[in-house]
C-alpha cells in the first residue's frame, strides 16, 4: 500500500544542517498496522511528515520516494498531495485541540473538509456524512457534538472527533502521530481500540507513530525501530520483541521497568544530528561495538531466515564474510 524508500530530510538551522531523516525505508501492507517507534529526536515524526508533504522550510526533503498506490507522494505537486491527504490518507496528530479550529463548530469543520475534497455539497449532505463518521468513532449523541465547539469536548472526545474527520472521506491509509500521548490511560486504550477497529473492519492500513512500546506490542503487526534518523530494525512485532536483533532495540526493550528486576541501562547520548557520525549512529553507546562500527555504515540486511525482518548492524551478519564473523565472536567474548 505504501512503500517508503530512502527518504532523506534535512533542516537548516543556525548551527548547521540537521540530519533529521537519513535514508528511511519501510513498507506498509494493506490491512496492516505498522508502528514507528523510537525516542525523542529519532526522526519518527519527521519521517511521516516528509511522507505526507508536511515539511516546511527550513526543512527540505533531499531524496527518496514514498509510493502510495502507484503514486510517488514526494514527486507529485503540493496541490495533488493535499488532495490525497484528507481523502486517501487520514492524519491524526497528538494534540486533538491543535487539529480542531476553536472558533468553528464541529459541523462547519466537517463541511469545510468535505467540500474541499468533494466539491459542492449542501450543508445537509455534509452533515449526514459527519453524523455517520461520528457514529463510527463511537460518539453517542453526535448531533450535540456537531453543533458544539472544540472547547466543549474532553480530550478523549476531541480525539474521537479528529479521527472522525480523518476517516470521513474513507481514506485507505491512516497516519497517527502519538494519537494517545496526551490522554489518560483508560481513554488511551479506548482510542487505540477504535483506531484498530477502523483499520481492521475497513481493510485500511495504519502507521502508528509512538514512543510507547506497549502501544506497539499490543496494536502493531510490524514495527519500525528508529534511531538518529535511521531505521535500525524492522520486522514483525512478535519476532522483533521476542528476539530483538539490533543492540539498540535490545537496550530499548531492556529499559522497560519490571518489578523485581534491574532495569537495563543504556549509557551515553544520541549523537548530534548536525555533526552526524560516520559509521553506525549507535556505535558510541553500543556495548558490542567493533572497530568498523564507527567507520562503516551498516547496511540493512535480513535477519537469517525471517521474511521482512531487517536489521542494520555489523554484528548481525546473516550472510556476512567469515572474517567478520570471527571478529564478532571475539568481540562477544571480550564483552
Amino acid at each position, binding site marked *: 500500500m505504501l512503500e517508503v524508500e530512502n527518504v532523506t530530510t534535512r533542516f537548516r538551522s543556525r548551527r548547521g544542517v540537521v540530519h533529521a531523516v537519513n535514508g528511511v525505508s519501510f513498507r506498509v501492507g494493506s490491512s496492516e498496522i505498522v508502528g514507528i517507534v523510537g525516542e525523542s529526536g529519532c526522526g519518527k515524526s519527521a519521517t511521516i511528515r516528509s511522507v505526507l508533504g508536511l515539511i516546511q522550510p527550513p526543512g527540505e526533503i533531499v531524496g527518496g520516494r514514498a509510493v502510495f498506490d502507484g503514486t510517488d507522494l514526494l514527486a507529485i505537486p503540493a496541490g495533488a498531495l493535499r488532495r490525497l491527504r484528507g481523502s486517501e490518507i487520514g492524519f491524526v496528530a497528538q494534540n486533538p485541540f491543535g487539529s480542531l479550529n476553536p472558533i468553528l463548530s464541529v459541523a462547519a469543520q466537517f463541511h469545510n473538509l468535505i467540500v474541499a475534497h468533494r466539491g459542492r455539497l449542501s450543508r445537509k449532505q455534509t452533515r449526514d456524512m459527519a453524523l455517520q463518521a461520528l457514529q463510527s468513532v463511537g460518539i453517542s449523541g453526535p448531533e450535540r457534538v456537531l453543533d458544539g465547539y472544540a472547547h466543549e469536548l474532553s480530550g478523549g472526545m476531541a480525539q474521537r472527533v479528529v479521527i472522525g474527520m480523518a476517516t470521513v472521506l474513507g481514506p485507505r491509509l491512516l497516519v497517527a502521530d502519538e494519537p494517545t500521548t496526551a490522554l489518560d490511560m*483508560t481513554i488511551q*486504550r479506548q482510542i487505540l481500540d477504535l483506531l484498530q477497529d477502523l483499520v481492521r473492519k475497513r481493510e485500511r492500513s495504519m502507521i502508528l507513530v509512538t514512543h510507547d512500546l506497549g502501544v506497539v506490542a499490543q496494536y502493531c503487526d510490524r514495527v519500525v525501530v528508529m534511531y538518529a534518523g535511521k531505521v535500525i530494525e524492522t520486522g514483525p512485532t512478535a519476532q522483533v520483541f521476542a528476539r530483538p536483533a539490533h543492540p539498540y532495540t535490545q537496550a530499548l526493550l531492556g529499559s522497560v521497568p519490571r518489578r523485581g528486576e534491574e532495569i537495563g541501562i543504556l549509557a551515553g547520548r544520541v549523537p548530534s544530528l548536525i555533526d552526524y557520525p560516520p559509521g553506525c549512529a549507535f556505535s558510541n553507546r553500543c556495548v558490542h561495538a567493533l572497530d568498523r562500527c564507527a567507520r562503516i555504515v551498516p547496511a540493512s540486511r535480513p535477519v537469517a531466515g525471517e521474511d521482512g525482518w531487517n536489521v542494520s548492524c555489523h554484528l548481525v551478519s546473516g550472510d556476512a564474510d567469515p572474517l567478520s564473523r570471527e571478529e564478532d565472536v571475539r568481540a562477544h567474548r571480550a564483552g
Partner: protein
Amino acid sequence: MPIVQVRNVSKTFYRDRGPGVRAVNDVSFSIEEGETLALIGESGSGKSTVGRLMLRLIEADDGEIVFDGHDVRRRSPEELRRLRATMQVVFQEPYESLNPRMSIGAIVGEPLEIHERGLSGRQRAARVAEMLDEVGLDPALAGRRPGALSGGQQQRVGIARALITRPRFIVLDEPTSSLDLSVQGQILRLLQDLQKRLKLTYLYISHDLSTVSYIAHRVAVMYLGQIREIGSVDDVVNRPQDPYTRALLNAFLSPDPTVRTRDTYRLSGEIPSPTQVQRGCFLYSRCPSRIEPCASTPADLRQLDPGHEVRCIRAPLSQPLVTVNPELRTFGGPPRPTQKQQA
C-alpha cells in the same frame, strides 16, 4: 513507626465563579521509613495535590499531616522553612523546575545557602560537587546553565538539589513522565539506589503502572480526590478489589506482544467533573459492577486483609475481573534480552 502520616486531609479549590472543585477528599495514609508509597491515578484524581499538601506548598482545608512527629500544618513559617530541609520534592518537568538564569552549581547549592548558612563558598562548592557526583553528573557541569543539559541530566540536577540537605522524605511528582524510556530507566535506578543508600522515604506520584510496580512497595489508587484502594503492590496489582483499580490495570498495555491484554473490564464514559457532588459511590455512574445500593450508600475505605483497604462495597468480588493477571505480576515485557541474538 511511620515517618509520614496523612489523616483525613481535604482540599477544595475555588474558582472566581461556580462551585469549588474538591481535589482531595478525606485522604489518609501513612508511609514507613525507607518505604515507597505510590499514588497512582489519572489526571484530575488529585494525586499531585496530595503531594503538595504534604509539603504545605498549598494549604489543606482539613486534616492533619504529621511528618516525623511534627504537625506540618501547625508549624510557623520559620519552623516550616527549617522543616523543609528534611522533606523535599522532585518535579515532573525537569527544565521548568530549574531557574534558567542560575548555574547548575548555584541551583544545587541554594538549599545549603538557606539551611546551612555557616558554610563558606568553598565548602559549599565541595558539597555541590560531591552531590553532583552522587547523582551521576560530572561536577564540571556546575558552571553550565540548565538549558545546556539533556532532560535526563536536568532531572538529575533536580534530584541533587532535593537531596543536598540530606532530607528523609521526598515527594517524587511524576519524575520520569517527560523523559524517554532509556533515560527513565536511568532515573528510576538512581532513585532506587539513593533510597537504599540514604534510607529515603518516597511518595511516588505517577500515572504509569510499570514504573509504579518497579519502584513502589505500596500503592494507593486515586480517583476523584479519593483513595479507592491501598495496599502492597502485590495486593493491588495482582489481587485488585476495587472496580476502578481493575479498570486501570485492564487499560495497561503490556510491552510483550505475546501477552494479549484485553480491555474487557471497562468503565463507561469519562471522568465526571469533580464539582458534581455525588451521594454514594463516586464511581457509580461509570462502574460495570455497580448494584442498586452503590448509588446511595457512601463507599468508605475498609480493610479487606491486613494492609489492604478497598472502597468498593462489593469487595471482595469473587470473580477475577482482570484477565491480564498473570502478566501483571512482573509487568511486563518480553524476557529480558540478555545476549545479542546470534544469526
